[in-house]
């Protein structure tokens, strides 16, 4: 069994591109990833592709073959859907395909077009990641669901909106040098606290923007990389996935994310590492509180202690374990179906030194990507390590 190497990766500029089709966005990322990998497209044997709201935003289902065609591949192509964890789940399928020897070269990616339908329709489309009968019909929105979790966290463990503001300020600051980021704008604690409320206690700056964008990566075997002299020092050494009840009301805890606990445990076990070995992580901060859940589930903090991490400077770029050096979903943007692969690309670039924030983690060898779907009813965790 060979741990897949990341031979090439690419993300488009994340932001508002209402006039760009999903297939055009994905073609840009996919062609660039293939070109960077230096792999003959004829050698690609499969595509796993993440997308969430294509039917609603573009009236387009069956996107697997469409996207393979868009990047010039004639391969079995499968769309993977797990809400905001669609691309993380696609990565997992790609890893399994390489590991079980079914293919030597696999393209994995994702794309989402969201701004063309406007904020109200996008809010509606995102809400269908929740339980339609019991949550959406009770007025639940995606921010609303995380607001319920945030309030429950404050009630059980303490913490305040101001703690969350520190997460937002940190991630905005991290994104300042990321040319792919949707928002490259510094904000203050006051900005975050005074921003309009979306679903209390969460305000505008606790929430990731609505984003168009795509990401792609080319995975290959160690043997193929050696044989073709590819520059592919980073391997995916651990993969994990966890699930939970879809509706918040059916879970024993509103202030914990056990699906992420399970995914982390599996991924760490698979890679043979533990939380203390991890130098940095890209986590799913669709809302500021989500970053807190993520760093607790990844074992970086005890339950109830993740809330103070950003405020204490521990997860900032000059802290001991930087979180979301890309700016996270919060500032980088969250084109839902592309996010998991954009995280994979970011971790690879931070490990190989080519990311603009790589100076924050020099000599790092282990990075983690955490991608969550819905209110964390789906989660994937991937461990990446520098080989040699």
């Amino acid at each position, binding site marked *: 069994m060979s741990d897949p190497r990341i031979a090439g990766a690419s993300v488009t500029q994340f932001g508002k591109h209402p006039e760009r089709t999903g297939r055009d966005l994905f073609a840009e990322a996919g062609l660039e990833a293939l070109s960077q990998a230096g792999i003959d497209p004829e050698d690609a044997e499969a595509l796993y592709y993440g997308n969430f709201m294509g039917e609603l935003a573009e009236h387009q289902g069956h996107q697997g073959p469409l996207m393979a065609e868009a990047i010039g591949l004639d391969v079995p192509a499968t769309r993977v859907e797990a809400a905001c964890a669609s691309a993380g789940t696609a990565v997992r399928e790609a890893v399994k395909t390489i590991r079980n020897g079914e293919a030597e070269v696999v393209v994995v990616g994702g794309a989402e077009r969201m701004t063309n339908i406007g*904020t*109200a*329709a996008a*809010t*509606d489309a995102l*809400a269908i990641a929740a339980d339609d*009968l*019991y*949550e*959406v*019909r*009770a*007025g*639940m*929105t995606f*921010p*609303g669901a995380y*607001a*319920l*979790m945030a*309030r*429950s966290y404050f*009630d059980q463990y303490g913490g305040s909106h101001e703690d969350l503001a520190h997460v937002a300020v940190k991630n905005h600051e991290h994104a300042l040098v990321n040319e792919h980021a949707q928002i490259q704008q510094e904000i203050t604690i006051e900005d975050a606290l005074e921003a*309009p*409320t*979306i*679903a*209390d*206690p*969460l305000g505008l700056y606790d929430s990731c923007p609505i984003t168009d964008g795509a990401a792609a990566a080319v995975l290959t075997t160690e043997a193929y990389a050696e044989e073709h002299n590819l520059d592919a020092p980073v391997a995916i050494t651990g993969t994990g996935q966890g699930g939970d*009840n879809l*509706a*918040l*009301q*059916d879970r024993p805890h*509103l202030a914990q994310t056990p699906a992420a606990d399970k995914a982390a445990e599996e991924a760490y076990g698979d890679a043979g590492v533990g939380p203390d070995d991890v130098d940095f992580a890209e986590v799913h901060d669709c809302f500021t509180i989500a970053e807190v859940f993520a760093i607790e589930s990844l074992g970086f903090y005890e339950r109830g202690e993740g809330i103070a991490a950003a405020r204490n400077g521990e997860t900032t770029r000059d802290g001991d374990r930087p979180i979301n050096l890309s700016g996270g979903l919060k500032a980088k943007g969250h084109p839902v179906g592309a996010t998991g692969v954009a995280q994979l690309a970011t971790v690879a670039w931070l490990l190989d030194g080519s990311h603009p924030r790589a100076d924050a983690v020099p000599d790092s060898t282990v990075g983690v990507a955490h991608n969550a779907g819905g209110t964390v009813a789906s989660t994937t965790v991937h461990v990446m390590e520098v080989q040699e």
Partner: protein
Amino acid sequence: MTESAQDGEYDAWLDSIESGDGYYLECSNGHGWLPPRRVCPRCHDQELSAVDLPESGEIASHTTITVPTPQFEDDAPYVTAIADFGPVSVTGLVRGVDPDDVAIGDVVGIDVGERVTTGERAVVFRPR
């Protein structure tokens, strides 16, 4: 207006709440769920029976939503909450109280109300 089909046991459950005979489904091990449900996802038991829903529950968490979906445009701002009714929790709209006065632990009754924007039915909690 085109007539749409009933959403099976979900609409039947709303009817039961509306008529004051609310229930939930309980497995032999006491895990509670809302219909439709054929198996307990916690213990795999398929012997689910209808049990009377307690008359009151406690707010477990709540939020006032100011940016709604289009189906709730005219309802906003409104309070959505999860209320704990013992073995089962339910998500609904909190009415009959100022949003600023809703708190975790508040005791509420369950009812069915109309959504302002669409006139469709929704679970509603009121203080009691």
